[in-house]
């Protein structure tokens, strides 16, 4: 702020254009950038990347908004296991209805369940994927992610909506448009510059190793299902992420909240079914140690009174091997869903879904 009383409006409104042939410079610059883009695309394709949609908040919002008009749809909420391991085509063929996939990676789906319970029009079935260490997490990133998705959906603007559809058109063409792995930020992370000795950073998250389609059918990429080095790397990332047991007060709170939410949905004629999907190897051992079934899964079912399917209760569901201990490959996901269908049909016949 000038401390003078000089006159009204002192800036000059002129815009000098530097003396260059600007159209020629623009053409050259855009041509160089286009050539680079082509090379960049070819490079990543040579590294086995293929065009795939990004699993964005916009994509999630585009699925969530369907419930605004189709109140009694079946909805899938959970974390990446439900996103990868559940084949919606199989479900549609067997049950006559395509579910809406609202599960998101690394998520505690309780905010999604709360959203559906509080939606006065919703009267469908909710299939809840339960990964106990995430499902009973008191806060942090597993809770932030669903809250951000819900906020984005509630504030989804016409501009974001059109940007989403334009973005999908490009993502179907260019492999390098991979937000999970190939942005500048992600590429810089790959430099693995060592940190100072006392730095406390968040635990490393696994690399992006799944694709989704427009209806959010997820699947593990082929090379992730085959590449043992990548699998080993992801396995070593899971162990620290799953090494904490949810604190008892958070468990109690989650159980109480689930009971209330299930009751609300049931009161409107809807249903809730809990589903425990496979995990294997050291990760399964760690889960059994930190989140033993009796204290988490069994209590969840007994508190809420909702039906549940635990993969370990059925021999046909427990014979799968997860390549990186936490998710099924694409073929196994299809088989697994096929084997789930008789169980779902039983529940439907019993009026439980």
């Amino acid at each position: 702020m000038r401390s003078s009383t000089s006159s009204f409006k002192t800036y000059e409104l002129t815009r000098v254009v530097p003396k260059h042939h600007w159209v020629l410079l623009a053409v050259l610059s855009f041509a160089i950038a286009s050539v680079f883009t082509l090379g960049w695309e070819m490079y990543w394709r040579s590294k086995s990347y293929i065009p795939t949609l990004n699993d964005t908040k916009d994509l999630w919002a585009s699925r969530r908004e369907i419930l605004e008009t189709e109140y009694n749809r079946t909805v899938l909420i959970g974390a990446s296991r439900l996103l990868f391991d559940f084949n919606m085509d199989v479900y549609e063929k067997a049950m006559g209805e395509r579910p809406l996939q609202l599960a998101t990676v690394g998520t505690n789906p309780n905010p999604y369940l709360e959203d559906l319970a509080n939606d006065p029009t919703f009267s469908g079935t909710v299939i809840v994927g339960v990964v106990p260490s995430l499902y009973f997490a008191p806060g942090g990133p597993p809770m932030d992610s669903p809250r951000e998705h819900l906020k984005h959906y509630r504030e989804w603007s016409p501009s974001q909506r059109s940007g989403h559809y334009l973005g999908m058109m490009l993502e179907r063409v260019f492999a390098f448009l991979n937000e999970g792995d190939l942005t500048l930020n992600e590429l810089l992370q790959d430099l693995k510059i060592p940190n100072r000795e006392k730095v406390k950073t968040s635990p490393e998250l696994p690399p992006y190793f799944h694709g989704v389609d427009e209806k959010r059918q997820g699947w593990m990429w082929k090379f992730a299902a085959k590449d043992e080095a990548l699998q080993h790397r992801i396995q070593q990332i899971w162990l620290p992420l799953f090494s904490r047991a949810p604190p008892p007060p958070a468990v109690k709170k989650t159980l109480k909240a689930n009971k209330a939410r299930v009751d609300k949905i049931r009161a409107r004629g809807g249903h809730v079914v809990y589903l425990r999907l496979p995990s294997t190897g050291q990760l399964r051992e760690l889960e059994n140690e930190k989140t033993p079934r009796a204290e988490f899964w069994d209590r969840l079912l007994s508190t809420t009174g909702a039906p549940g399917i635990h993969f370990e209760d059925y021999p046909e569901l427990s014979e799968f091997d997860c390549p990186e201990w936490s998710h099924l490959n694409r073929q196994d996901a299809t088989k697994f869903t096929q084997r789930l269908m008789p169980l779902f049909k039983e529940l439907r016949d019993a009026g439980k879904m």
Partner: protein
Amino acid sequence: MLFNSLTFIVFFIVVLGLHYTVSSWKTQKTVLLTASYIFYAAWNPPFVILLWISTLVDWYVAKALVREEGPGKRKGLLFISLAVNLGLLGFFKYGNFLLENFKALMDLAGIPFEAATPSIILPVGISFYTFQTLSYTLDVYFRKTDRCQSFLDFALYVTFFPQLVAGPIVRAVDFLPQCIKPRRATRDQFGWGLYFMTLGMFQKVVLADTLLSSAADKVFSHSGTALHFFDTWIGVLAFSAQIFCDFAGYSTCAIGTALCLGFILPDNFRSPYAAIGFSDFWRRWHITLSTWLRDYLYIPLGGNRRGTLRTLFNLMFTMFLGGLWHGASWTFIVWGLLHGFYLVVEHLLRQCFPDIALVKTRMGRFGLGMLTFLIVSVTWIFFRAGDFSTACLLFGSLFNFNGTQILPTLEILQVSGVVIGLLCSHWYLHEKHLEHAIQNLPAWWVVTLWSTMLIGLIVTQGGANAFIYFQF
């Protein structure tokens, strides 16, 4: 609609196509006005009504002000404009803040008061277009400008999409004359406009969002234990650079977009981090807001014509409102008051020591410039911290040698690189305009810079993050 979105790219191509294919100037302006409403409605359609209210009220008030000679009635008309514009701003921006503070006051007085907390959504850019329309009515009231004769021109002035939501705040005397004759960018203006747009998006997407935001977010969202001084300083400097790249990036895009359409908008930034002193800083930072505050608040209050004490009060009061303009929170008010205090101290120092030799040497000026930058950066803590406890934690951490270390080496390198680069560029452009610097570069160098920025944008794949100043 955000500049850094695919929707905007398609929208702008369509607008350009229509702008340059329609032959009638009136139709061109109608196209631009319609496009501006679409641009705004793409964020939240109902809020276009607020733009219409603001436009209609100021149009009719200005019309009546020209006809009316009686001072009382003229004041009444001005009051209507102020009440409607500031009333809307007050309701949407300060409603919750006032209610919270009223409740706190009642609690303090021991009077039980419970109020429902209304969920008020802040219409994007309301502070910007409110100040813009107000400036027109005030200019007509003070007879500094004639009334606009065309409603279409006036509506376009209020709504012109390149600067609608985050400035630069344009004066009617600058914009309305541009509506008289048909505007078409020359070939070179168009290319230079595209260069500006690329530069603005690079600042926003690559520098602010990708290289700086993570460190700033980590440090400003830290709670509990005190941070290590090094991490705190890096986080503070990261935000200092981020807020510049974000806001200047928007202004640069706005100027470039307007230029492609043949319109000229004023500069909003002029190497502010090379400012020597705080009055110099405010001549370089958000220029269109600081000149607005100077012309419509500081000078009407008496400026520096009514003695030292009154001058100091005027400075503090102007900066207090400047802080409040940025956000409905006490932290913004403290940020504004601190800048007012710095201006007061500088004013007094200039009076007491008008002729210090050190200040005139190159090293002296550089030292003062760096001191200004550091104080401005530290003061941003109040601006960025959501509450006083976070601000206090960070101030306490600035000289804490045993605190928690949270920043990875990569982010430290990113922030250091950008901040050093930013300071070098600001000092290089301290006394000259970007246009002159670019003019002196050989063409191949310009192509290298331009294509590097484009490649940076492509590799970054910038998600459409909103600009920080949209919330103001």
